[in-house]
């Protein structure tokens, strides 16, 4: 039992790391722009495809393919921010519709380019096994956990220790006050979209080789990431980090006790429970002016 538990905790930490990347990107964009970007999952998926493309067609280096994918998605994010979301500023309904529309456009675009079938990406880290006691995991598991750990730490330091990072947090807390201290909101929008999309790409590029790369691979990470930021408290960065990791571990461990098919049910039951018991989320604060 202890073996099985350890196995699921490691699996859960790996998946939780992926959810963390998605949640952190979404919460940054949401906090600064007040856009709940439902297209974040398809951007994650595109990150997987672009990484695959760079790896198989151009670079033959997984690291460079990941970086290339992050760069491409940053540019796509920039274009979406400029071309779509900035124009719909302060129009929540249109933003939701636009982000749902983007899912259709991007998903079908990917199918048009790469076809509907899953792609496989063979890299050495998925073949190397790391034994832990009687268990063994792919090296990719630990590569994911380590990379996400380093990335999230870097983002955290950026947000808390740098001038621009503090300005990003300031803008997400009080946009009007940010304007009167001279923070240019448009620059903050660009920064949050850029970081958010790069994180989504990193997620897709890390998960792709372990499972497969297919047009709906971002759907579940999107839903789990969304659940993570709601559980963590909308707009809370520590909430998104801990929420993402927590969801990964809870759903993995739950498979020990209940059928695997109910894994997603467990996550959303936990979401409902949090909403009932603590509607502002674990790390959220009640917003002034809201009941």
């Amino acid at each position, binding site marked *: 039992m202890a073996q099985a538990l350890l196995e699921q905790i490691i699996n859960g930490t790996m998946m939780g790391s992926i959810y963390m990347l998605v949640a952190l990107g979404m919460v940054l964009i949401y906090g600064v722009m007040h856009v709940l970007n439902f297209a974040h999952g398809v951007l994650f998926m595109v990150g997987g495809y672009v990484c695959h493309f760079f790896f198989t067609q151009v670079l033959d280096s997984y690291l460079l393919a990941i970086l290339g994918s992050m760069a491409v998605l940053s540019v796509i994010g920039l274009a979406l921010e400029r071309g779509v979301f900035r124009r719909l500023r302060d129009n929540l309904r249109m933003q939701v519709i636009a982000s749902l529309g983007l899912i259709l456009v991007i998903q079908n675009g990917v199918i048009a380019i790469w076809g509907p079938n899953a792609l496989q990406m063979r890299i050495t880290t998925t073949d190397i096994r790391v034994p832990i006691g009687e268990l063994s995991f792919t090296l990719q598991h630990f590569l994911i956990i380590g990379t996400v750990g380093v990335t999230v730490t870097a983002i955290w330091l950026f947000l808390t220790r740098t*001038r621009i990072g*503090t300005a990003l947090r*300031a803008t997400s*807390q*009080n946009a*009007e*006050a940010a304007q009167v201290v*001279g923070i240019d909101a448009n620059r903050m929008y660009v920064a949050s979209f850029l970081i958010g999309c790069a994180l989504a790409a990193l997620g897709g590029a890390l998960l792709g080789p372990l499972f497969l790369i297919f047009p709906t691979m971002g759907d579940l990470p999107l839903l789990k990431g969304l659940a993570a930021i709601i559980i963590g408290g909308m707009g809370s960065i520590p909430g998104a980090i801990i929420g993402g990791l927590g969801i990964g571990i809870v759903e993995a461990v739950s498979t020990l006790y209940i059928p695997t098919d109910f894994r997603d049910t467990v996550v959303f039951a936990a979401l409902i429970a949090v909403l009932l018991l603590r509607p502002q989320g674990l790390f959220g604060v009640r917003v002034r002016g809201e009941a």
Partner: protein
Amino acid sequence: MLEARGLTAGYGGGRIIVDGVDIDARAGEVVTIIGQNGAGKSTLLKGIFNMVPVRRGSVSLDGAEVFDQRPDRLLAGGLAYIPQNHSIFPKLTVAENLRMGGFLLRDQRLLVERIGEVEAMFPILVERRDEYAAGLSGGEQRMLEIARTLLMAPKVIMLDEPSIGLAPRLVDQVFQTVRTLAEQGKAMLMVEQNVKKALAASDRGYVLELGQVKLHDRADRLLADDRTAQLYMGARPGGTAPSAEAPEGRP
């Protein structure tokens, strides 16, 4: 120092709130704008600071035309604006809030130096440096807003209802701070509902009604003026005000 001429400001759909206002504030002076709710006081300040979608007219700062400049350029040029209520960053620490006040300063040494100066002026901010600003009392938050503004060493500070929501003792303290800053040579332009205390701390005052300047005079004269008294402080029982159409003071 600050001069707005024919300033018209409003929001989308052609809603004009401020209609051709002439207003100025000179160095060393406290100028207060009073008027009922909806008279356009806040919109006037926002209009000067280029934060409303519809605006016409001219704004000059130190003799230079700045009407078309973005808020961050205005701030860099010496015009600061403290909006009404809660313009702190609640989940940044007091120290981080101050540093954001100097966001536009590239020279970090100068920023540190100025933070030292304002901390000397407002010692409470030193004591609570590492706490979230949300934990400060209302009066302390107001001091933080003012202190944060001073980091850009502005020549003109516009304040939207600095006394709102504060206990009487703290109201006096805020107006005292405003006076002190004027004595240091800054032009202070504020919007206030607390008419008596605000005018008592001011040199000049403007009375705004339906987006237009109704009266403009020295603050002590406005205080003594029956029209001001009746409209904005409520009618005094047995007072000298002519019992016109609004004896109770309209909402």
